[in-house]
């Protein structure tokens, strides 16, 4: 109850202050142009206060807090300083600041800036390299952000065609604003760890490689139309089987062999790996592996950086060694190698993968093909993951030495 009364009192007090201001026999500045007269909340969202101040303070050019947090106002007419102090006082007090407002000489009124900004921003933001437009209260200008100096000329062209004074606009070269990208998004250049699709299946891109036959990426043999044998599987990244997401074609998936080291009744290979040739239009980062999250075992799929392959392990991993993997389902997981060079039967098949390494770390459906590596910056490539337990706490990978034994020499960084 008391709270309601208090709120009502505040409202009355604020309306009273505004009324007092309006009682002052000072003229409200006329609009400089028809569009300035139509000062309404614009694309920046909510310049309602500025619109009110524009009506009540002739020559008002913007209100903001400076680097030290001091209330500051731009005025084109410094003779309006006293009026500005009175009008702005409630807002300043509401922000918990001292009542004193700094006054700066402005070149343009807020209404002018608003009109120019409204006129320019749709065309400017449609230009390649445009990042943002801002009615910049703190600089008494319209500020336009562009990715590079190369975009400045086109912005100036828009300003000229729109008859916006060049001196009213600041053009800054800024970093582009990037959306959060995950392992399941379209990423170019491609890196290891990204989601790939073929037919009705999803897997993970293992690593990029240059091969004597051309630019390639490596994923699992079971991530092809048929495990063992080359059928020209078409790969897409990340999901849609459309031309703009097409990345490459399976070109090498050795057949599984019987006899020799392979147990009777089984068929074997030393790696669950296949090689796909990149489409010429697709850019890729040789040695790059997506870093999902800022730490392992968080479940994050957001790409926060890149691991760079700097070496390859020459044989099997050592039991107890800590390794990582990055896959489209469980992201960046880390754990220790628990078994080295294990002949591993594949669930639901008569396939045995010879001399594989097991790791106690998280895995999930869709992680097939994930790059496995040691280190967290310049990393050593260990191989690619191909399977795991149903509980998702142990995975198995094919060592990169086994992969090259079957696919031929690969340059991976």
């Amino acid at each position: 109850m008391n709270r309601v009364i208090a709120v009502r009192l505040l409202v009355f007090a604020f309306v009273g202050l505004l009324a007092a201001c309006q009682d002052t026999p000072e003229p409200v500045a006329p609009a400089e142009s028809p569009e300035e007269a139509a000062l309404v909340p614009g694309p920046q969202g909510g310049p309602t206060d500025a619109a009110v101040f524009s009506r009540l303070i002739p020559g008002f050019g913007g209100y903001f807090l400076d680097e030290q947090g001091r209330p500051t106002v731009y005025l084109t007419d410094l003779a309006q300083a006293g009026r500005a102090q009175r009008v702005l006082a409630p807002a300043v007090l509401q922000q918990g600041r001292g009542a004193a407002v700094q006054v700066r000489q402005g070149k343009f009124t807020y209404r002018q800036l608003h009109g120019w900004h409204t006129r320019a921003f749709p065309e400017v933001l449609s230009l390649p390299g445009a990042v943002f437009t801002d009615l910049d209260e703190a600089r008494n200008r319209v500020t336009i952000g562009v990715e590079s100096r190369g975009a400045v000329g086109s912005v100036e062209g828009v300003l000229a065609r729109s008859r916006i004074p060049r001196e009213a606009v600041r053009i800054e070269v800024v970093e582009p604003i990037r959306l959060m990208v995950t392992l399941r998004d379209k990423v170019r250049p491609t890196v290891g760890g990204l989601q790939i699709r073929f037919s009705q299946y999803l897997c993970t891109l293992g690593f990029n490689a240059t091969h004597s036959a051309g630019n390639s990426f490596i994923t699992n043999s079971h991530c092809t139309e048929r495990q063992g044998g080359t059928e020209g599987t078409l790969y897409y990244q990340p999901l849609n089987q459309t031309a703009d997401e097409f990345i490459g074609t399976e070109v090498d998936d050795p057949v599984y062999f019987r006899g020799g080291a392979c147990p009777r009744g089984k068929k074997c290979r030393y790696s669950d790996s296949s090689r796909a040739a990149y489409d010429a239009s697709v850019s890729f980062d040789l040695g790059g592996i997506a870093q999902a999250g800022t730490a392992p075992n968080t479940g994050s799929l957001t790409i926060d950086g890149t691991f760079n392959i700097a070496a390859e392990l020459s044989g099997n991993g050592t039991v107890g060694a800590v390794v990582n993997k990055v896959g489209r389902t469980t992201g960046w997981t880390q754990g220790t190698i628990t078994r080295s060079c294990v002949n591993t039967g594949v669930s639901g098949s008569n396939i045995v993968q010879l001399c594989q390494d097991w790791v106690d770390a998280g895995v999930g459906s869709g992680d097939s093909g994930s790059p496995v590596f040691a280190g967290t910056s310049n990393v050593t490539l260990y191989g690619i993951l191909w399977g795991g337990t149903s509980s998702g706490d142990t995975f198995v990978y094919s060592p990169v030495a086994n992969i090259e034994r079957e696919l031929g020499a690969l340059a991976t960084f």
Partner: protein
Amino acid sequence: MHTRVVLVLLSGLASVAGDCRPPAPGTQSGGDAVAADSATIPDSAVTSYGDSLQVVLSAPTRVQVGEPVRITLRVRNVGPKRLDLGLLGREIAFDFLVARKDGVVVWRRLEGEMIPAILQLRTLAPGEALELADVWDQRTNQGERVGPGEYTIRGELPTDEPEPLRAGPVRLTITGG
């Protein structure tokens, strides 16, 4: 004579793009504790998370010792729209767990299996069902025959979510021969 436990499970499905994704889970009955007290296990239990997907676990309620036990997991789209599922494996991986009355799991279908971690996209049309079945030979994972008594059976269907879809438990009584 069969006990049929109908679970409407809508959690833990693939997070890939599709026409229709199941909504977030709502209520759940039944339970997923392997060690559930058999006195509390219903002959049939329906869990409703929504109206898009049913996972039905079927098994006989009573068999003779040594008699093969056929267990079925049926996934059905009961909603009006196509439903996209993300499942583990080229051969869809699914698990059954059989536990004694004291909760000790005596047989797990995927025990010790190393499963290819490929994600299979399956779309179920309205009314369409996917049936997964296996037969338990009443032996433990160590190959020993189990004796007469009360058992519970639970079904699991891994997806690309951290937790699999779960169905059950249902009760199984093995009687002496």
